[in-house]
């Protein structure tokens, strides 16, 4: 049904696409005559590679250099080389467990906030996605509908998600209305640091779980049903089948989910930025927001410091992913 619905869209787009591209014949034929069949591979990959090089690879290299320069000028020729100064500034701490003793206390607050967020968010995200995927994997009516329902928030933009929840959580909002109706007291959800941090986690789980549910569901459906039938004949309980069959066979998919959700959790930014703006106080300032405020939003734009912080973050992500890949490979062997 949907394929037939989609057909006009794809065919019109394909037709337009081809019409425009046919014009390229005039350029491509002489090119092939000069470069030969194999040389055309370079022609095909060039546009993608040029954009990629200019807007991703080059900035990555520049970022590395920025981290070792000082001053407040944007252009590199006006920035003095300061060596490790920026990194030293970041890592000057009386006691690494107490952000107040650090020179860049906001950075360490951001690191700690991010740590707490990542732990809570990834745990809850994986847990809820798994439960939902298991529920959707059962022989139930309206599976397609429920699958779409849980996926819907994934489509919403971070700004929209933030606004929806601000509206619900505000002092006179829906949730406080329900609490008062049940005989409770109004809770200042957006004004207390603890509640702010908790809601940031809950909202991101709400907004992302549909995506991971789909991946886990695909993994669950790839498990052959013969395994369950055999276990059933052997008299295994549902609980035993879950621990003995489902979980071990789902491990590769779980691993993908874990890697993706961890990387994404460390990179948390736009949704929270739009939701709390880092507040109350600095309770929901995370690492990317530190980079953003230090480099862009503050009156004095300390590009060097921001670049150094992003370098630290990139290194951390690299190490994290390497560890995970290592663990993943080991679990595949055993």
């Amino acid at each position, binding site marked *: 049904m949907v394929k037939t619905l989609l057909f006009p869209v794809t065919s019109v787009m394909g037709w337009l696409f081809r019409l425009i591209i046919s014009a390229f014949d005039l350029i491509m034929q002489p090119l092939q005559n000069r470069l030969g069949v194999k040389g055309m591979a370079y022609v095909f990959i060039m546009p*993608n590679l040029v954009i990629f090089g200019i807007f991703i690879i080059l900035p990555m290299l520049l970022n590395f250099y920025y981290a070792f320069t000082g001053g407040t000028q944007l252009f590199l020729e006006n920035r003095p080389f300061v060596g490790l100064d920026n990194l030293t500034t970041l890592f000057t701490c009386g006691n690494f467990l107490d952000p107040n003793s650090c020179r860049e206390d906001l950075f360490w607050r951001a690191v700690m906030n991010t740590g707490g967020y990542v732990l809570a968010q990834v745990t809850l995200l994986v847990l809820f996605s798994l439960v939902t995927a298991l529920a959707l994997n059962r022989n139930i009516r309206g599976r397609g509908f429920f699958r779409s329902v849980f996926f819907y928030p994934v489509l919403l933009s971070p700004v929209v998600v933030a606004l929806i929840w601000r509206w619900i959580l505000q002092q006179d909002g829906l949730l406080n*209305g329900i609490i008062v109706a049940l005989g409770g007291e109004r809770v200042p959800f957006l004004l207390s640091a603890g509640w702010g941090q908790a809601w940031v986690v809950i909202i991101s789980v709400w907004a992302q779980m549909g995506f991971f549910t789909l991946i886990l569901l695909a993994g669950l459906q790839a498990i052959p049903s013969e395994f369950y039938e055999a276990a059933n004949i052997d008299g295994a309980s549902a609980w035993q089948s879950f621990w003995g069959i489902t979980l071990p066979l789902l491990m590769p998919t779980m691993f993908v989910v874990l890697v993706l959700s961890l990387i994404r959790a460390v990179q948390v930014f736009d949704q929270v930025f739009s939701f709390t703006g880092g507040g109350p106080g600095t309770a929901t300032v995370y690492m990317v927001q530190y980079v953003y405020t230090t480099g862009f939003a503050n009156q004095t734009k300390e590009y060097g410091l921001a670049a150094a912080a992003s370098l630290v973050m990139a290194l951390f992500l690299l190490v994290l992913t390497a560890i995970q890949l290592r663990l993943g490979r080991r679990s595949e062997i055993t």
Partner: protein
Amino acid sequence: MATVLRFLTLTRGKRALNTSDWLTYAYLLLGTCLMFGPVIWLILSSFKTPAELVRFPPRLLPYQQETIVVPGFDDPLALYDVPMPDGSTRRLAQVRRIGIEAQMIDPADPETIIPVNINARSPVEMIYFDFSNYTDGVQRFNFWTYLGNSLIVTIAATFLTLFFNSMAAFALSKYQFRGRDTVLFVTIGTLLVPLSVILIPIFLVITEIGWNNNLLGVIVPGAATPTGVFLLRQYMLTIPDELIESARIDGASEWRIYLQIILPLSLPALAVLTIFSVMWRWNDFLWPLVVLSRSELFTLQVGLNSFKGDLQVQWNLILAMTVLTLLPITLVFAVLQRYITTGIATTGMK
């Protein structure tokens, strides 16, 4: 009764529902409420009048006080139910309020003023969907400008992405050339590096090119998505090489092979990438936030965020504009949802 219940709970396998089935449905229904509830609450709220919005505790549906036009009064008068000393209740219109006393009249008899304590009367209300939030909001918010920018960015970037990514994927899947594996490795490797981490140098590069405050600065840089290249390459690997060989023997140019063999055969993967790309671009926030600082170039997302930050702006307008911003992507999803969910499940990508 038990047989009716049993009949109602029969599943496709002609088997009655057991406890875990009930639990499953309960969980899924609760989930449906939690997933859709906030959005539905947003939509209902967007039709409320400012007076209704500040009401606590809030009510589900939007209400408005009924008014009546009485001869002799220029403005419509608000209607109230007022209990009378004799125990009956009369529907009266309020003329003015002085302190705690309201001067009211019976619409049928506008000459006699009846003084009523303001705490004794209760307003007569009806369900009323107030569209003025939308009409006012569209004016205050520059909605059409932002919508236009968002559409330009989304459509142009999606075409560029499909075009460039499919060419690159073709080269990476069907040719042997020096540096192929390096390109592939670097492409996939950059999936790990968040854009947000290299914000400053990207800003520098865009400034050097002169794309600050230019929609091109939002469209072009994001076009070379590693996800798209990877997704299309994996799909193109399944296209048999013999097809390409025989086309070459028939004298087709490489460009024609890409255009007339590879692209049509990759349509399913291209469709999935189209959906992703539309979703990414429409919801993109950080990149346009950095590149665009002139408000006439804002996309919907950046515009909405700055609208929110403007203290002069009322919640009723923000809510209406939020609904308008999420509407297009919701409609696309409603039409294509099965295709989207299965597409993501099979490719495992976002």
